[in-house]
């Protein structure tokens, strides 16, 4: 199988496959970051996470259409506004959902799963009714098209580089919020001991609502970034939700570093395997490996040592 390629070709293939894996990695990280906050920190299984992501994608699409029609001069920069709008839209919806649904179910995690699945069905049908069943794709500004030639045989797409830079920025921001800011300290305090946190004067309900909102908002940004590399349909979110949960669980639920490490290993495994076999078999093998490792090590890669 490998005999037809020279060593140099193989090197280029691995680099380019690796880069494709890095783009997949970015999407996984962006989606899993929000979920790591919601599932890892709060313990809420949000099956509608993919739909929050798709909301961000649709907001981005709407913004790009609006810019094309009304402000063509500013079109190259629409994406930055779209990202902020996506964050606000998904975050606001997230807070609404937390207020109306999730807060009644904190003590029943399995029921949260069913309720949010119901929510995801409703959101999907809403998207279908509002935006139509067909997939929509945004028009990329000129500077994001094309690819960068690194050597003769290696070239990488610019939108991919952009998405990766974005991922790094957002990850750093989230890490800062969670581990350095006063608010992040409150979130972690509530997670570790809700009663004590309440006793020292933290408004735990408010923290819950904003945490959930933040997680959903990040999902919205992920959706926004997702439009750079793929088109969006009403059910696109569902395709990623199981993968994303596996990324979070595989990394060890409460660990941000673990989430990133597991997203990296999963996406690299999958994209490297994809070169050697069909896409579906690559996916099957990757998922099987994850499930197998999780059976041997249920706490995930980076588990906090805590007494349960």
């Amino acid at each position, binding site marked *: 199988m490998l005999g037809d390629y020279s060593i140099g070709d193989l090197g280029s293939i691995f680099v380019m496959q690796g880069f494709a894996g890095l783009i997949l990695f970015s999407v996984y990280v962006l989606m899993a970051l929000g979920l790591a906050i919601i599932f890892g920190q709060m313990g809420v299984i949000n099956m509608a996470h993919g739909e929050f992501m798709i909301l961000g994608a649709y907001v981005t699409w709407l913004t790009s259409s609006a810019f094309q029609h009304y402000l063509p001069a500013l079109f190259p920069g629409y994406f930055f506004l779209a990202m902020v709008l996506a964050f606000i839209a998904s975050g606001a919806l997230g807070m609404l959902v937390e207020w109306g649904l999730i807060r009644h179910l904190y003590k029943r995690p399995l029921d*949260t799963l069913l*309720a949010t699945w119901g929510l995801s069905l409703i959101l999907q049908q809403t998207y279908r009714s509002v935006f139509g069943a067909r997939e929509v794709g945004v028009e990329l500004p000129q500077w994001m098209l094309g690819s960068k030639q690194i050597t003769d045989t290696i070239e990488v797409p610019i939108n991919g580089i952009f998405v990766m830079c974005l991922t790094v920025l957002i990850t750093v921001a989230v890490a800062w919020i969670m581990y350095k800011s006063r608010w992040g300290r409150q979130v972690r305090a509530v997670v570790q001991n809700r009663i004590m946190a309440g006793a020292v004067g933290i408004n735990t309900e408010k923290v819950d609502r904003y945490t959930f909102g933040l997680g959903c908002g990040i999902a919205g940004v992920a959706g926004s970034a997702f439009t750079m590399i793929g088109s969006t349909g009403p059910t696109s979110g569902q395709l990623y939700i199981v993968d994303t949960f596996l990324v979070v669980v595989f990394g060890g639920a409460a660990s941000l570093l673990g989430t990133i490490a597991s997203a990296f290993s999963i996406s690299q495994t999958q994209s490297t395997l994809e070169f050697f076999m069909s896409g579906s078999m690559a996916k099957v093998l990757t998922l099987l490996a994850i499930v197998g490792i999780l059976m041997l090590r249920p706490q995930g890669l980076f588990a906090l040592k805590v007494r349960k």
Partner: protein
Amino acid sequence: MIINSRFFNRSELIGFVALAALLFVILPLSLDVFRLNLVAKYLTYAFVGIGLVLCWGYGGILSLGQGVFFGLGGYCMAMFLKLEASSPENTKIQSTPGIPDFMDWNQITSLPLFWQPFHSLTLTILAIILVPGLFALIIGTAMFKRRVGGTYFAIITQAVAAILTILIVGQQGYTGGINGMTDLRTLKGWDIRPDHAKVILYFFEVFLLFGCILLAQFIRLTKLGRILVAMREQEDRVRFSGYSVANFKIFAFCMAAIFAAIGGAMFALNVGFMSPSFVGIVPSIEMVIYTAVGGRMSIFGAVWGSLLVNVAKTGLSESFPQLWLFGLGGLFIAVVLAFPNGLSGIWADYVQPRIDRLLAWRKPKPAKAWTDSSVADGAPAE
């Protein structure tokens, strides 16, 4: 807790008789064959529901991968039927006669080894029980022995469902791919397609269903069923009392898997095909919702839930396709938020007391409390 020495208490007996009357008499008399066949299709999910009542309602183990076992059972049955439909005479236009048509289309020239046992009906029936049972045993042993449970277990079963679907779709030559196994014709030479065969299959399925109901009720009433409930409420106490919690969980999960597989096999027989769209994550979660709507604590509730949700689904999606997903989504949320015990909970809380009062009013003798199981089981699951 008073252990009920009778197999059914009074309200359960009424429920049993009412369900038997509906399925054996009322529906066959009032529906045409097409609709009866639809009911048979809905009832295949009732098998899954009964398994979920044991494993989720009583054991507290939520599996989001019941579609896997439904699919394994269904595919085992479908492979047997497909082999019979692909006799050399039926397939002589193919480049390799005697193998299923989709293999021929995918340039496979001989029957793969894992298809060989499905020439025999006995081995097929064994496979329908054993393959999902063993699969559940492996997953259950790996997970429960390491004390993985709750949400993690749910996510991992979901991943298994995703894997199996991708595998079936990807391996088109061996499984029929996304179209599944279609064009199933005869069972041991007996044509399963005409109307009278559909009616016979319906009654066969209802008999099997009642067999499963009685088996589940038996498990529920034995000491084992009590331990399952105790485990759900206070797992550590049961463990400290010296019971092997993992083994009981594995047992409940395997039973649920086998029930689901029987449902799947009946699905292949009644509907006449099997496809990966009944295996994956979405159908698996839908099966859970049928059970939740009927009442996760009630065996009869699971049957009613499967019937009613599917009737609503067919009705709504025939006339208002847009509304169906809103309805289903709303149903999920409403059941979880307002009625955690589903229809059977509503029945036990509102309807049953009225009936009891009515009966007590007719007979001056105070009615003996119907409570034993209804009250004890009425407590929310978590």
